[in-house]
């Protein structure tokens, strides 16, 4: 602080250090050379952009495996509408804070992936001119049908039609999801598989318990007939009560997930 102007020289030194450092020091965050290239045709709608490009942009953008932008609808392997996970339960539509989702339930039910027939979305629109990317729809979805896409190239000159992502624009495969969000997708698939396994185990246990109970009952009845003792009747009845409650009757509320194909599990 003694010499007048020393502060300025110090500042200049810092600037010079930064200037030189920016050529080789990763810490100085060199420019990500993102540039959008058209193939001579300007997309009119946000849905016209290349569907599955986001993962290719990672070298030139700051998009990571965790980035989110707008929601998309997941389907499993096969024809999108045959394997779409959404059953048009409209929970996301209700919970969406800015009210940007619009769903119309189908009239008929459709069987998907070997599961029992369910409704499917006849219309599924997301108005990206309103969407605030808050991810609450993903959180509330009980079917793991809606997840976040990291696609950000959506500029369009059309205000009303162009910014409305229709169902077919939103449909993305689970493989694509694995490409853009590998960790999240793997965790989600694992959870689905676990839940499914647990459900099946429960079902099996319940069936076994039922069988056992039936056997026990038969045995008990036989015994009761033979001995007519009150205690021997109550005991097996208790054991049926203790066994896991029978789940198969429950599921209208429980998610009914389409079956997974190999590779994604």
């Amino acid at each position, binding site marked *: *602080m003694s010499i*007048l*102007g*020393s*502060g*300025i020289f*110090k*500042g200049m*030194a*810092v*600037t010079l*250090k*930064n200037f030189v450092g920016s050529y080789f020091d990763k*810490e*100085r*965050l060199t420019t990500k050379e993102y540039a959008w290239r058209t193939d001579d045709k300007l997309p009119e709608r946000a849905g016209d952009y290349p569907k599955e490009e986001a993962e290719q942009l990672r070298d030139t953008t*700051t998009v*990571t495996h*965790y*980035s*989110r932008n707008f929601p998309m609808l997941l389907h499993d392997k096969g024809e999108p509408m045959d394997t779409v996970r959404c059953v048009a339960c409209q929970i996301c539509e209700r*919970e969406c*804070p800015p009210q940007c989702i619009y769903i119309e339930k189908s009239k008929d039910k459709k069987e998907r992936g070997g599961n029992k027939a369910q409704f499917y979305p006849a219309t599924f629109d997301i108005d990206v001119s309103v969407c*605030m*990317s*808050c*991810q*609450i729809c993903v*959180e509330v979805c009980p079917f793991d049908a809606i997840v*976040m896409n990291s696609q950000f190239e959506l500029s369009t000159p059309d205000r009303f039609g162009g910014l409305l992502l229709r169902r077919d624009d939103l449909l993305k495969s689970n493989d694509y999801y694995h490409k853009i969000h590998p*960790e999240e997708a793997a965790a989600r698939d694992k959870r689905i598989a676990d839940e499914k396994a647990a459900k099946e185990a429960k079902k099996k246990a319940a069936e076994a318990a039922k069988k056992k109970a039936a056997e026990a009952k038969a045995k008990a009845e036989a015994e009761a007939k033979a001995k007519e003792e009150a205690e021997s009747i109550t005991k097996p009845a208790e054991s049926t009560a203790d066994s896991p409650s029978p789940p198969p009757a429950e599921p209208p509320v429980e998610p009914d997930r389409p079956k997974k194909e190999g590779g994604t599990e």
Partner: protein
Amino acid sequence: MTAAAPNYELIQQDGLETSLLEVSMGPHHPSTHGVFRMDVKLDGETVVDLKPVFGYLHRNHEKLAENMSYLASMPFTDRLDYFNSMTNNWAYALAAEQLIEIEIPERAEYLRVIMSELTRLVNHVSLVGFFVNDLGALGTPLLYAFREREKILDLFEQASGARMMCNYFRFGGLRCDVPEGWLDRTREVVDRFPKFLDEYEKLLCENEIILSRTQGVGNLSKELAVSAGITGPMLRASGVNYDIRKVDRYGIYDRFQFQVPYSKGDVGDCYDRFMVRMLEMRESIKILNQALDGIEDGPIMGNAGKVFKPAKAESYGRVEAPKGELGFYLVADGTPKPYRFRVRPPSFINLTVLRDMCIGQQVADAVIILGSIDIVLGEVDR
């Protein structure tokens, strides 16, 4: 300029006499940190009177929140003070958690502290950049500040998915756990941050221009600061040792060793406010290091149910946001929607004293004084 002509004659006749000039600065003005307007009355270069005009970004956040569920308001709180979405989330979660009893798991508490201190770094670093920008150093320091901000935003993006509007906190915990390796990456950023701060201090803190332009400008006395409800770094720059992290000890702040930087003098000028923020970043790094050491594996979501429907009650939760005391006042009436949702915005209330600080100063200094208050219009007007 029809009004200028008679004034000109007046000056000609009376020699040294001038007349008052009213200037409307804003709402589109590069130095106003958003759409804020000051109606300034000038005598020559000196500010005689100043009237702040608000409301150019009044997005009726409170009214909207009264018409939607408690959870749906969470992403809206991100957009209050859009530099510090994480602390906004925390304040709201804190207020809502008082309404129903929720236990917050240990890991979530640690992550909340980490997120909130990272937010403080983001805010202070960009504020200092903008402040120096207001002083006339266009570009360079701001670019350095934004470079450091980017590193922390990358961390936020990895944890929550979004750079700015994280929407990461939930009642009773956090939305999701941080990905693998995130803590190591955070530690890398935190470890290197002091190096950047050294550089920044070298660049700015002893610069003669900054010293002469900020020292003795925009003084705020201790008494006025307390009475006007000033909070945050601005209050501490006026010499009051009051930090809600120390006073309320919300979350798990009682476990960390850190100091609250405050000005020893009773001046409270722009330089003090600038320096308090620089020092606060160092303390944040201390907290971050301790939190990163202490964090352990575990669940991140408490026992909160899916439906949030508190009984009839009211609550006021407040945190030490980077700009001051951010409070949420909720009145629940037994329905899934809050009956009254009120935000206590720190930068709005800090603007109470703008007029007092600016009167008697030069018009160019009014810009610096506004910059040193650190306002974000999303929060001022809500």
